[in-house]
């Protein structure tokens, strides 16, 4: 009695992957790059990166996309040593200590000079042996200049602002920017972090699962400010010719997010993976980043940065915990956050 349905189901199921456009069998070696979801969107960096790299590598670059950076790491941990991945692209320095501890990654053996502020060492130097940066940004509270006149210039000022000034933040347990804000407060205030959170609590309209929800609510006018990046206004300016959005510059400085890539120790294409890492730091990759990933490129492209990408934060105001510090402070910072905001 159920055979007709089963047939229909099997038919439509077997059709689905075919329609999904399974990759054609190919002689060329395949480089598997695991990354986060928005990287591979049609309007993201993925298509341009794939096109440019395949033009020089005589290989087939295949993206596998999973959620965001943290989901990416979890997926790698699930797959373990059996993973197909040759390259992982999209972790950040808040995750690299945990990622390194998995033992899944291989040293890259490169010493690039990068255009990334370095609070812990010499400007331009990069000394992480496993992970190489490809872009970076500052977390910041973004607001609408037509709606918010009295813009707080620090966490203290935000705390002192009228109670109806509302911000939306992301949950550090489910979101990268949310975790970034934890580190921001911790890096700026250390042991005073609980007081800052207690002061911020009345201003927190709500906490969302991810960046998309928070930014969506902000654009709908639900809150005055939203936790995002200093580069967010550039999107509205360039893509929408909308100059009303701005990032509030805080006196305490801004916490950085540096996005990194690494090659897997178990890669069956180590040479190709190395070639990709070199490509990643080349102009062909870096020049794509600003207007597709809306972050600062790790190495400023030859043509400079697009209009709207002028950095409002001076490099000496950059805040960053080292990967080990970040890992060590993580649980404590989360407990402080939970305690203050659960009220």
């Amino acid at each position, binding site marked *: *009695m*159920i055979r007709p*349905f089963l047939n*229909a*189901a099997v038919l*439509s*199921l077997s*059709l*689905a*992957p075919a*329609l*999904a*456009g*399974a990759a054609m069998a190919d002689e060329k070696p395949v480089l598997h790059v695991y990354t986060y*979801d*928005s990287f*591979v*969107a*049609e*309007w*993201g960096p993925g298509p341009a990166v794939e096109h440019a790299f395949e033009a020089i590598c005589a290989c087939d670059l295949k*993206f*596998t*996309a*999973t959620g965001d950076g*943290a*989901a990416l790491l*979890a*997926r790698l941990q*699930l797959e373990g040593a*059996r993973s197909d991945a040759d390259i992982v692209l999209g972790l950040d320095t808040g995750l690299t200590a*945990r990622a390194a501890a998995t033992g899944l990654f291989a040293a890259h053996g490169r010493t690039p000079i990068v255009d990334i502020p370095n609070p812990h060492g010499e400007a331009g130097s990069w000394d992480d042996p496993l992970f190489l940066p490809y872009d970076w940004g500052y977390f910041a509270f973004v607001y609408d200049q037509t709606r918010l006149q009295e813009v707080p210039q620090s966490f203290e000022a935000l705390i002192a602002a009228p109670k109806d000034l*509302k911000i939306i933040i992301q*949950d550090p*347990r*489910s979101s990268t920017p949310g975790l970034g804000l934890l580190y921001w407060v911790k890096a700026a205030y250390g042991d005073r972090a609980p007081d800052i959170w207690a002061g911020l*609590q009345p201003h927190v*309209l*709500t*906490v*969302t*699962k*991810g960046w*998309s*929800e928070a*930014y969506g*609510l902000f654009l*709908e*006018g*639900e809150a005055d400010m939203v936790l995002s990046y200093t580069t*967010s206004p550039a*999107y509205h300016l360039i*893509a929408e010719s909308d100059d009303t959005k701005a990032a509030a510059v805080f006196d305490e400085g801004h916490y950085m997010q540096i996005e990194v890539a690494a090659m897997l120790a178990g890669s069956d294409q180590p040479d190709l993976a190395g070639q990709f890492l070199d490509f990643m730091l080349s102009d062909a990759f870096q020049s794509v980043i600003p207007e597709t990933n*809306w972050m600062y490129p790790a190495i400023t492209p030859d043509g400079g940065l697009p209009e709207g990408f002028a950095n409002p934060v001076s490099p000496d105001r950059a805040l960053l915990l080292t990967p080990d510090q970040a890992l060590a402070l993580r649980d404590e910072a*989360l407990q402080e*956050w*939970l305690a203050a*905001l*659960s*009220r």
Partner: protein
Amino acid sequence: MKPAGWAGIAAAGFLAALSLGTLAVVAVRAESGAGFGPADLAAIRFTVTQALASAALSVLLAVPVARALARRRFAGRGLLITLLGAPFLLPVIVAVLGLLAVFGRAGLVSSALAALGLPPLDIYGFRGVVLAHVFFNLPLATRLLLQGWQAIPGEHFRLAAQLGMTSRDIARRLERPMLRAVLPGAFATIFLLCVTSFAVALTLGGGPGATTVELAIYQAFRFDFDLGKAAMLALVQFGLCAGAALVAWMVAVPAAFGGGLDRPVARWDCHSLASRLADAAALALVSVFLLMPLLMVALSGLGGLADLPPGLWRAALRSVLVALASGALAITLALALAGAVMRMEVGAARFAGLLEASGYLSVAASPMVIGTGLFLVLFPLADPAALALPVTALVNAAMSLPFALRALIPALRDVERDYGRLADSLGMSGAARFRLLTWPRIRPAAGFAAGLAAALSMGDLGVIALFADADAVTLPLLLYRLMGSYQMAAAHGTALVLVVLSLGMFWLFDRGGRFHAAA
């Protein structure tokens, strides 16, 4: 045992593997396992409290609405019933945005209040969570209760009219026994759905105080990568749901109504002005509450239609195919299970209960754990990306089974009660009996079930997050990608397409089921 019995046991085994098996797989992979802390206990407490409040409110509000729909005939009634199903089928983020466009700080209500010099509405907090869950589940509760009303044969209402029974008498003699039978199940179903809520609860809950168990599972998985704890929390979630289901099962008293002659139900008891006003008010209020956010979604979506991203229609086609497969699978699984349950109610009643319960496992399961467990099982065997769409279809078919079973089992019971002996005495069996008797009589229920499965899989993103294929995006994935890269207008447009397609699929199946059904 007849083949149908084995098919049912196979279906139950599959469902148990999907829900409990994946949990076991995750638990086995666990390396460490932190115990429960106070935060976890707080999450459990919050989960139960909000789910109880949400389910109770949804079900209570659904009673007058379902009654009004059951006893009134008016132009656009069918359309209203279909539209009322929309919130349940909306992708979470779209629904939340729509809800906030009406009830948020910058929403319609707050704007109106501001015009009167009043402060804006503040819905963030416990009330926001309940509001959102009622928004999602009131339509479902209404639908379940409406089925209950429609199960009372029209002859009973005629008899009641003949006996001079007033609306109140009918409520006491016919409607209350029906509600007594239907309400506990509806309550439990919605409780289960609210237990596994996560993004909605957090967003509208206003802070980490609104942490549900599912969020704690999510945290254990991606923040701590503590699979043992994720499995333990998932087990707690099962426990909560099993408890709710057990209570509902003990409280429910099955109502027995004899068979009728399929005449359209006409009512003679509700011509009084008061009852007309009450019904009109119930329908008007629920329409405003449910349709205004939908309207806002549609309006902002129309604005975004110009910005629709490339690849939208390919994604839409993919989603539609997945939805069709999911609908077919849901009916297949539900019929296999329901058939076996019916068979075993004679003789092996306890086993029948167990089989029926297996149909409800999927709702109690954590989507995060199902996804992770399936990934662990399938990853060594095949490319997860190639399985993304079949897995979506399958898991959503399983997720919609509780509703499919709720609709199909009573329908099958009615068929057996009214026509079982006649069919037996005529020697109707096997495929012929299914084609000539069972299918025509359960088609409306089956159409509803398939439509729900199709629409749910249309909007799903949860379980397949780990499987997602970079190239083969579905509509909801496209929607989230757009939102994740500032493209709010395009996201709104995509959301509108998604909503229209989801509702369209549901309508098609649901109508298909009722088209030419015995009148």
